[in-house]
Structures are given as structure tokens and as C-alpha cells.
């Protein structure tokens, strides 16, 4: 375990800022939130729209679904594998540069998709270029930047920015669908690629700064370090596990609890993303009903994410995270046990609230416990575990369905894993390790709270 003499400064004390006088005008962190939202909106939205290009591109090139799926699978895998490296780059050179370069590469790669003539070009551009670049304009980097700008509101802010990815898919997918009808898939790829650069990049370049002190500000809009009116303590508040070297974090327990539960998050969301509609049709639902149920779940996940963010800033995060996994486990139980399409609807309603809310909570807890110096790298590893879990579960779902002719066993395994994720999250000793619970001026394990 880490010793208490190896601290890295980073956070400001929660209680110290609670009485900070308000600044005039809009706090700059909110503009960074907007830049992050539109970056996720376009980066994740552009990747999400790939599905609407599949049919027209297949028609033109006579590609099979499995050939196109190869590009998707490679993209999924490389996006996950690249996250720790991109997170490390973020920790070293800052979010503004990493996000900007990623958006430019991703936009250029997307525009080049308008020129392809063979499958290998699709695999290179979508599977490699776009998927790796998307990692630089992802939750890993954007949560990292925002964690430095928000301390008391960290949970709700990370939740709000995360909804940008959902909103991007919801808007860009129909936009691309109709543009393909009007102008064909080549023009549509070019337009989507141009939008990936033109919409978020000016916001990122203008707004994103890695350290509030660069703007004479402090987290949450408190008085900046140079503010002569400041009367609050600016002593950084650190938790006992904050460290200069990210490798040391892996000698402590919470990172494994967070990564393990996020692995289960990947398992339980990806298997549904891949197999929910076929499962619903097997259960007697029409494709339309299955689509409607999934759409309901998507709407609820935005509501759930923001609500959870608000609550987590007031009452702590680990119990909420554990509750989300428990709720998702109940949804799986309903999916398997409820008869006919009742299970489909019950799952959509119950699971919808937990669907994306786990991501900002996991990022917030990681930042609270390990500080901000290595937040990119650690979030990158957490995301890698999520993506590995997702790839594993999609494969497992297909294999078990082929063998047993039913999804019940695959979904049962996923539900059982959620019990483990619930226990792992609930057993995180948040009050002992989170900087939010450290007494001001005392941040060693001996002085921190120990009554989780």
C-alpha cells in the first residue's frame, strides 16, 4: 500500500470552498463543460452513426455483414486498448492538445471514409484511425479536465457531459440517415467528418484549460489563487492514496474494485446492446416494440445519469454506484424471469436509470480517491477493463446462444456478475480514501475517517 508521504497536490478542500464568495459572470468551468459535451456529442455520435452506413455501403461493395463487423470489432478492441496510453498522454501534455488533435484526426479519418473503395480501407480508417482517435475525445480526457475544474459539483458535471455521447447518437444518426437519402453515403461521411472538426474544435481551443489557476480561477468558481478578496484556505486537500506515480495506485484496493465493477458494466451493457433486440423478438416482441423499449431505456439513462450526479455530490458516491449495479441486476432478473414481453419492458425501465450513470460515478470516485495527477491514465485503465468486458460478453452471448438456443444463460451470468460488482462497489472505503472526506489539513490514513 502507499505511504502517506507520497502525496500529489491537486484538489481544493471541499469545506474550504463551501464559503467562497461568488464570482461575477459565468464560471469558466461551465464553458469547458460545453466544449466537452459537444466533443463527446460529435466524436461518439460519429462512431455511433456507422450503423446507418452499413446497408448502403454493403449494397455498393457487396460486403457481407461479417466483413463489416470485422471493422467494428477491431475498432471496439483498439479503442479500449488505446485508452491507457491516451490517458497517459493527457496526464503529460494536457487535455486541450489531446482532445484537439484527436478531433482533427477523427474528423479527417471520417472524411476520408467518403473516398474508400475496398474493405481494408474501411478497416484502417474506422477500425484503427477513428477508433483510436475517438479515445482522445472521450470520457477519459474530458472527465479528467472537468475533474480539475469542479470539485463540489464533480458528480453532476461529469454526468452532464457524459450525456453528450447519447445526445450525439440520437441527433447524428437520423441526420446521417436522411442525408444519405439526399446525397449518398460518400457525401454524408464527408459532412459528418467536417462537423466532427468544425463544431467542437473551436470550443475546445477557446475554452479548455487544464488548470483553473491558468485563468485565475479555482475549482467550482471559488476565488482564484491570485484573488485579493480570497479569505478561504487554498491548501490542497489530498486523500491518502494520491500519488505521483500511477503504478503505485495498483498497489491499493480501490482501483481494483473500480476496474472490476466497470468490467462488469461493460459485460452487462454490451451484451444487451448486441443481443437485446434478437432476444426480444425471440420472446415474441415485434422489432418495433423492441426498438421502442430500447429507445425508452436511452431516454431514461440521461435522466438517471444527471439525477445520480446530483445525489452523489451530496451524499457520497460508492453507495450510489453499488445501488446502480444492484438495480441493473434486478433488471436482469426481470428480463429472464418475467413472462413474454413484460420482461422486455421491465428491463428497459429499471435498467435505463443505471445505463450510463456508472461511467461518471466511476470517474468521480477515481478522481476523489487518487487525485488528478494521474486521472487520465487510471481512467484509461478503467475504460480498458470496460471495453474488454464488453467484447467478452458479446462473444459469450453469441456462443451460448448457438449452444443452448437461448440467451437465458448468458443473461444469467451477466446478472450474477452484477452481484459481484455491487459488493465490490459497496466495499470501497470511500470515507477513508476519498479527498472529499478528509479533514482540512489532515490527510493521512491515520487521521482520515474510517467508518465506511
Amino acid at each position, binding site marked *: 500500500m502507499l505511504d502517506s508521504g507520497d502525496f500529489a497536490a491537486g484538489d481544493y478542500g471541499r469545506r474550504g470552498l463551501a464559503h467562497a464568495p461568488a464570482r461575477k459572470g*459565468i464560471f469558466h468551468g461551465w464553458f469547458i463543460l460545453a466544449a466537452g459535451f459537444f466533443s463527446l456529442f460529435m466524436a461518439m455520435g460519429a462512431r455511433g452513426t456507422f450503423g446507418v452506413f452499413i446497408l448502403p455501403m454493403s449494397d455498393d461493395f457487396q460486403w457481407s455483414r461479417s466483413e463489416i463487423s470485422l471493422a467494428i470489432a477491431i475498432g471496439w478492441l483498439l479503442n479500449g486498448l488505446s485508452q491507457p496510453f491516451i490517458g497517459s498522454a493527457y496526464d503529460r501534455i494536457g487535455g486541450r492538445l489531446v482532445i484537439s488533435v484527436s478531433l482533427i484526426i477523427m474528423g479527417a479519418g471520417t472524411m476520408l471514409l467518403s473516398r474508400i473503395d475496398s474493405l481494408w480501407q474501411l478497416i484502417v480508417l474506422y477500425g484503427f484511425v477513428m477508433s483510436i482517435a475517438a479515445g482522445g475525445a472521450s470520457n477519459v480526457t474530458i472527465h479528467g479536465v472537468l475533474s480539475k475544474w469542479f470539485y463540489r459539483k464533480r458528480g453532476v458535471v461529469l454526468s452532464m457531459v457524459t450525456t453528450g455521447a447519447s445526445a450525439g447518437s440520437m441527433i447524428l444518426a437520423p441526420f446521417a440517415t*436522411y442525408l444519405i437519402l439526399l446525397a449518398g453515403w460518400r457525401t454524408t461521411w464527408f459532412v459528418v467528418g467536417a462537423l466532427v472538426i468544425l463544431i467542437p474544435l473551436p470550443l475546445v481551443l477557446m475554452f479548455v484549460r487544464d488548470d483553473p489557476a491558468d485563468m485565475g480561477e479555482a475549482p467550482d468558481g471559488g476565488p482564484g489563487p491570485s484573488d485579493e478578496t480570497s479569505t478561504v484556505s487554498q491548501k490542497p486537500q489530498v486523500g491518502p492514496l494520491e500519488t505521483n506515480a500511477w503504478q503505485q495506485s495498483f498497489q491499493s484496493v480501490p482501483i481494483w474494485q473500480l476496474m472490476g465493477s466497470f468490467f462488469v458494466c461493460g459485460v452487462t451493457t454490451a451484451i444487451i446492446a448486441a443481443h437485446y433486440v434478437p432476444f426480444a423478438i425471440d420472446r415474441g416482441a415485434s422489432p418495433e416494440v423492441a426498438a421502442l423499449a430500447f429507445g425508452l431505456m436511452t431516454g431514461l439513462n440521461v435522466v438517471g445519469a444527471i439525477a445520480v450526479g446530483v445525489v452523489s455530490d451530496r451524499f457520497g458516491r460508492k453507495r450510489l454506484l453499488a445501488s446502480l449495479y444492484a438495480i441493473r441486476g434486478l433488471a436482469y432478473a426481470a428480463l429472464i424471469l418475467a413472462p413474454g414481453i413484460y420482461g422486455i419492458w421491465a428491463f428497459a425501465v429499471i435498467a435505463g436509470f443505471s445505463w450510463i450513470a456508472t461511467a461518471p460515478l466511476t470517474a468521480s470516485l477515481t478522481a476523489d480517491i487518487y487525485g488528478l495527477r494521474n486521472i487520465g491514465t487510471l481512467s484509461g485503465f478503467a475504460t480498458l477493463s470496460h471495453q474488454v468486458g464488453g467484447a467478452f460478453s458479446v462473444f459469450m452471448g453469441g456462443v451460448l446462444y448457438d449452444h443452448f438456443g437461448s440467451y437465458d444463460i448468458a443473461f444469467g451470468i451477466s446478472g450474477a456478475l452484477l452481484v459481484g460488482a455491487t459488493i465490490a462497489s459497496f466495499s470501497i472505503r470511500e470515507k477513508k480514501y476519498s479527498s472529499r472526506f478528509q479533514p482540512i489539513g489532515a490527510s493521512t490514513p491515520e487521521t482520515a475517517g474510517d467508518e465506511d
Partner: protein
Amino acid sequence: MPLLSALAHHGEPIDPELMDWLRHQIDALFGLGPGAIVLSLGALMVLAPLAVLAVYALQRARRGRTR
């Protein structure tokens, strides 16, 4: 491998058949042509960030005047 998902979790590609069905629902609901929908959604995507930039510019101008 299934061609993944409906309105996604962390950026998974949307299911093509599902999107086709959604398109028909949008057509039935709004009765607009493709051009009108592309323009509406495009305007939404462009104007929202422009509004953020305008607010920022206004705030900077106001702060500049008070200095």
C-alpha cells in the same frame, strides 16, 4: 457478430434495421421531407455551440467594459 446496438451506451454503432424503422416513424410523425429534417438537425447542431460562443463573447465584452 451482431451489428450492434440501438441508441448506444458508449458509442457503439447503431443497428441499421432499427434506424430504418425509426426513420419511418419520424416520417409518419412529422411528414417532412429528408431535406427539411437534415436542415433542422443540422441547424440544431451548428446553432447550439454558436450560442455558447456568443454567451462567452458577451461575457468577455462585459468584463472588458468594467475594467
